[in-house]
């Protein structure tokens, strides 16, 4: 993706943001600037900056290849899965899986990933919940 395309995307974003801002209505007794004044200035400035970016693009040496994107995507999916699993299955189980998965992505062997996952989730749970008194979800399925 070159800077030119980025510049166009930024310009479109600025336009949408500006339109959204323009449609905002002032509340009762608002000042002369109103809730949309500041956002409109930002939208205008961003649009102008995007034109500068379009006119003077930079060369980017290396954009991630296909395998890298798959790698990254798998990590992002794991974050999302973690967010959805955290409350139902609890911090310890979710974190064991997530840490194990991530460390394996970073090149750990299966047994290393397992030990790290289990060890760190237990350690962090005790540290945060018991030593620091910061609540972490224990897991809905264990409550019944």
């Amino acid at each position: 993706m070159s800077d030119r395309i980025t510049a166009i995307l930024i310009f479109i974003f600025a336009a949408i943001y500006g339109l959204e801002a323009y449609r905002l209505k002032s509340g009762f007794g608002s000042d002369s600037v109103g809730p949309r004044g500041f956002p409109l200035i930002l939208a205008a400035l961003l649009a102008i900056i995007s034109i500068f970016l379009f006119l003077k693009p930079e060369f980017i040496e290396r954009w991630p290849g296909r395998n890298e994107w798959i790698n990254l995507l798998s990590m992002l999916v794991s974050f999302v899965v973690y967010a959805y699993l955290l409350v139902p299955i609890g911090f310890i189980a979710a974190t064991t899986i997530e840490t194990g998965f991530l460390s394996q992505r970073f090149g750990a062997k299966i047994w290393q990933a397992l030990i790290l996952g289990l060890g760190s989730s237990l350690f962090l749970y005790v540290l945060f919940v018991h030593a620091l008194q910061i609540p972490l979800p224990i897991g809905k399925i264990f409550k019944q």
Partner: protein
Amino acid sequence: MTETLQLLAHGFSIALEPQNLLLAFLGTLLGTIIGMLPGVGPINTIAILIPITFSLGLSATSALIMFAGIYYGSQYGNSISSILLNVPGTASAVVTAIDGHPMAKQGRAGPALAMSAIASFFGSSLSIVGLMLFAPLLAKWAISFGPAEYFVLMVFALSTLSSLTGSNVVKALVSTMLGLILATVGLDPQGTTIRFTFGQLKLYDGMDLVVVVIGFFAISEVLQSLSDTSKGQALQTEVGRVWISAKEFSSSFVTMIRSSIIGFLVGVLPGAGATIGSFIAYTTEKKLIDKDNTFGKGDIRGVASPEAANNSAAIGAFIPLLTLGVPGSGTTAVMLAALLSFGIRPGPLLLQNSPDIFWSLVASMYIGNIMLLILNLPLVGIFARILLVPKWVLMPLVTILSFIGVYSVNNSAFDLLLMSGFGILGFMMRKAKFPLAPVILGLVLGELMEVNLRRALSYSDGNWLALFQSPITISLWILTAVSLILPIVISRFRKKEITLEGE
């Protein structure tokens, strides 16, 4: 003068309380470690710790003592990896690697590390005195600032950071605008209109800074390090005796003084921090004293200069943060957010209304720097071993700690999704060379800017010329223009492109 000493003595009495001593120690220890580890910096660490310190019920003073310790501690630690690994721990140690790593390769890692610790201590100590003397003066002067002055001051801070971070001003400005735009999400400052929430109830209070910062910095860093295929550099584990000779010390003495002063001045400037300070100090020294062309080949003065400067700048950066309420770098921006969440509003009135916070911070800095000197001279060999921790241990742990930090802000899993979204955005911005620090500064300053703009205009009955009327606003506008035009002029003369990432 006696008044200053009295206030300082009172500050010491607070900083020496067992809990605060412990927090200063934890902060500096943690700072050294995270400063050393490439990929974990003070910005992520402080952001992760904000919700944690909050739920621990620490006082604002105690939290600030620890956060400050993390920041200036990281300026000690970051040189360890620069010297031993040729990979800077944080951006402000980029320059230290230029002479530090060649020294390590020549088997002089010990003197390089010792010089770095001593120069760091030297720079910090000079700078704390500066902080103590100049902060009250600046606060007195800034008390006359009205909303128009504040608004323009923030414009100036954003423009200097944009023009000094990264190699491309236009891209840095895009980052700045993104931060400001993110700040407009949620209820508007007058509390009458809901903006840009797309019906998401959870966004009514606005974007939580911790969520955005951890996403942008920590998560994108994890993604980046996965995508980074370059093989790690060989670690020089043979540290040897960490000491320098009297000759080495005296040869670097003037350099340390000069660089500390440069670092301090740069640090005080809103919009410039330790990275830029170390860079300017090093290039100045190179021009002044590099007669035999030894800089870049393992000259110990090339280690002393950036290390004195980045520590001195890190301390100096507390001046605009505390007396004006306008931070100058990513890290101080996060610290401002931390203070605001504790209900403390830094600004010219802070020193008047809650002098305890300021003076106990100053006192804790004296204490923290002595702790750091001890940690970084005899114990540096032990710290160096931390660099051997493999990526597959470090990166998952950083991720999980980020999750805990984000989750504990609101006990909400939705925030984890938001964080992941900012993570991928931050990653793409890194790849496309958009700097990230301006996003944070924009996000933190956005609301303050809008509030001050609207206040200034309601004082003037909607007359926009009010922003250009006082001598202070006019000079700040001129400085803003200069800061944006100067890099374009300089880049024509600059021989070698050096990129500075956010610190």
